[in-house]
């Protein structure tokens, strides 16, 4: 739009029309993809689809933090865990309203991120990566050792909620809730990335010093996006706790942070749709790996190495290759 500022309304409208059509098509496509697992009527497929939806929320939010804003964090699973434990303690153990508990979990995750983010985000590059890894392992230690989290045993006896008189106890109904949350987070990500703040964050990613010079409040932007993405992770954690109906520290450790990072990289770092696709692929592969028993983590390690070897720039690079191939055939 900025390229042709003097374009008339008449010239604009067909383009707007085509964009509307694209949006409508995308919406219909998304709706079909979300509805597909429901139509299967299969409990296992719903379970995998639910975990994929949660993975997608995590990958989209880490995609904003790392892919879009350039702040590498290995602590995303820690914030996910804070959200999960908070929601369970409030709703299941103290009978607080489910939605309120969910958002309280997100808020506490955000608070933790804000407090540790101020000193941590002064660091850059490899130093930030290692510091957030220590943060992740430190918070994992809290989950294992604290009383309120049930220690290494965790918390059992979680029952899916009833919201406004409608019971989400069935995994099918709960899946609809998860899919709805994933769509909302996806839209929020789109809004953040394309906002004025989103452009500031992109400037920080490209060159922190230069961004500061042109007037971006670097530390405030970095801490804000760290807090916001941690809140989204906390929300995903709360939703996850009620999907699995059981929480334990193993669900919130460094391995999960690495898995979410691999989703983001497979998706091509900066693409929200890519992150969703990455989440679906990684979730399916991880679930399939349960069948190899003891060898699970060995095969998982090999899978991570192989996917990095063949797709270091993510699936988006394949899409790019296909598009280039197609256009050169047409002769454009």
């Amino acid at each position, binding site marked *: 739009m900025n390229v042709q500022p003097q374009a008339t309304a008449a010239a604009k409208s067909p383009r707007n029309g085509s964009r509307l059509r694209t949006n409508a098509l995308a919406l219909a496509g998304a709706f079909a993809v979300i509805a597909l697992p429901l139509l299967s009527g299969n409990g296992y497929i719903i379970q995998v689809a639910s975990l994929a939806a949660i993975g997608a929320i995590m990958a989209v939010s880490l995609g904003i933090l790392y892919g879009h804003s350039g702040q590498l964090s290995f602590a995303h699973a820690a914030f996910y865990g804070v959200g999960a434990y908070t929601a369970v303690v409030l709703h299941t153990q103290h009978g607080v309203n489910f939605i309120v508990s969910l958002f309280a979990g997100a808020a506490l995750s955000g608070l933790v991120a804000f407090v540790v983010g101020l000193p941590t985000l002064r660091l850059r590059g490899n*130093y930030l990566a290692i510091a957030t890894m220590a943060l992740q392992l430190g918070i994992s230690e809290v989950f294992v050792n604290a009383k309120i989290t049930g220690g290494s045993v965790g918390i059992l006896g979680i029952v899916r909620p009833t919201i406004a008189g409608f019971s989400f106890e069935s995994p099918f109904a709960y899946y609809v809730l998860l899919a709805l949350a994933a769509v909302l987070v996806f839209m929020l990500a789109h809004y953040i990335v394309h906002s004025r703040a989103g452009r500031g964050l992109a400037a920080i990613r490209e060159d922190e010093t230069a961004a500061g010079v042109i007037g971006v409040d670097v530390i405030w932007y970095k801490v804000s996006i760290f807090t916001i993405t941690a809140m989204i992770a906390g929300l995903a954690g709360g939703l996850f706790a009620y999907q699995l109906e059981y929480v334990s520290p193993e669900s919130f450790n460094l391995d999960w942070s690495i898995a979410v990072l691999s989703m983001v990289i497979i998706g091509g770092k900066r693409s929200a749709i890519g992150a969703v696709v990455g989440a679906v692929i990684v979730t399916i592969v991880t679930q399939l790996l349960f069948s190899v028993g003891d060898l699970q983590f060995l095969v998982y390690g090999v899978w991570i190495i192989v996917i990095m070897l063949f797709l270091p720039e993510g699936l988006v690079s394949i899409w790019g290759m296909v598009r280039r191939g197609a256009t050169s055939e047409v002769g454009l």
Partner: protein
Amino acid sequence: MVSFVEVVIAAASFGAAFALLALSINVIYSTSTVLNFAQGEFMMLGGMLGWALYSAMGLPYWLAVVLIAGGMGLVGLAEYVLVVRPLLLRRAADIAIMIATFGAAYVIRTATALGMGRVERPAKPPLGQTPFVIGGVPILPQSFVVIGITCAVLILAWWLYSRTTLGLALRAAAFDPDGAQLVGINVDRLNALTFAGGGLLAGIAGLLISPLSYASPWFGITFAISGFAAAIIGGLGSWPGAVVGGIILGLANALMLRYVSGQWGTFATFILILLVLYIRPTGIFGERNAAKFGTV
């Protein structure tokens, strides 16, 4: 007072082992700028092999040391050839290499657990368990072994880096890889060599530390965060930094263990990282050059 001296000696022993690990991280990082997250697993594997060869099979200690040094060198080389080199050749982003080294870590951890059992193993110290009493302070003989061998390795490494042609090539490649390539230094071969060296050093660190706790296939990640914390506290790529970072971390660990509890070690490590890097964002001996932050 006596208990304080004990804490200091424990700190020096753990600090020496962490310094070795941080050194092994820096050896690899300074030539290839790869953060190899499998190095905690190298250290774990060194400890497990030490238990298997010396405690369980009863080989002489010197033979165990030689076998572990050679074997872990080969493990490091294998990781370079199979995982890191193909990614470097593709000029893959640092993050892709990082995640791939985590893949290597999973493979080593799972293979060790499957091959040698999933339990903690008591590793036998080579000089026995009877503490020497010096000035009323009981000191475990293993403390002398750890500190002594670490000092020997540091002197050897310093000699190699500062007094040999190979060391000159390594320093040239660390300073400017493309320039080194241009004057006829085979950087690929040097990278292979540093991965072998990194495996060797981390393996020895694991062998040395295992009699002070246990050997277990699950210790790799704890070792990794201690080694990487020591490396960034000292300054990534800096040799004196590795030693100082290792000692600071060892001291913090020993104080936590003695006066607070063993349950919050990693949380304390995180706080320590923040405290030191708040004052110096690139570590105590790190260069204050933005390019040295790494480009993830």
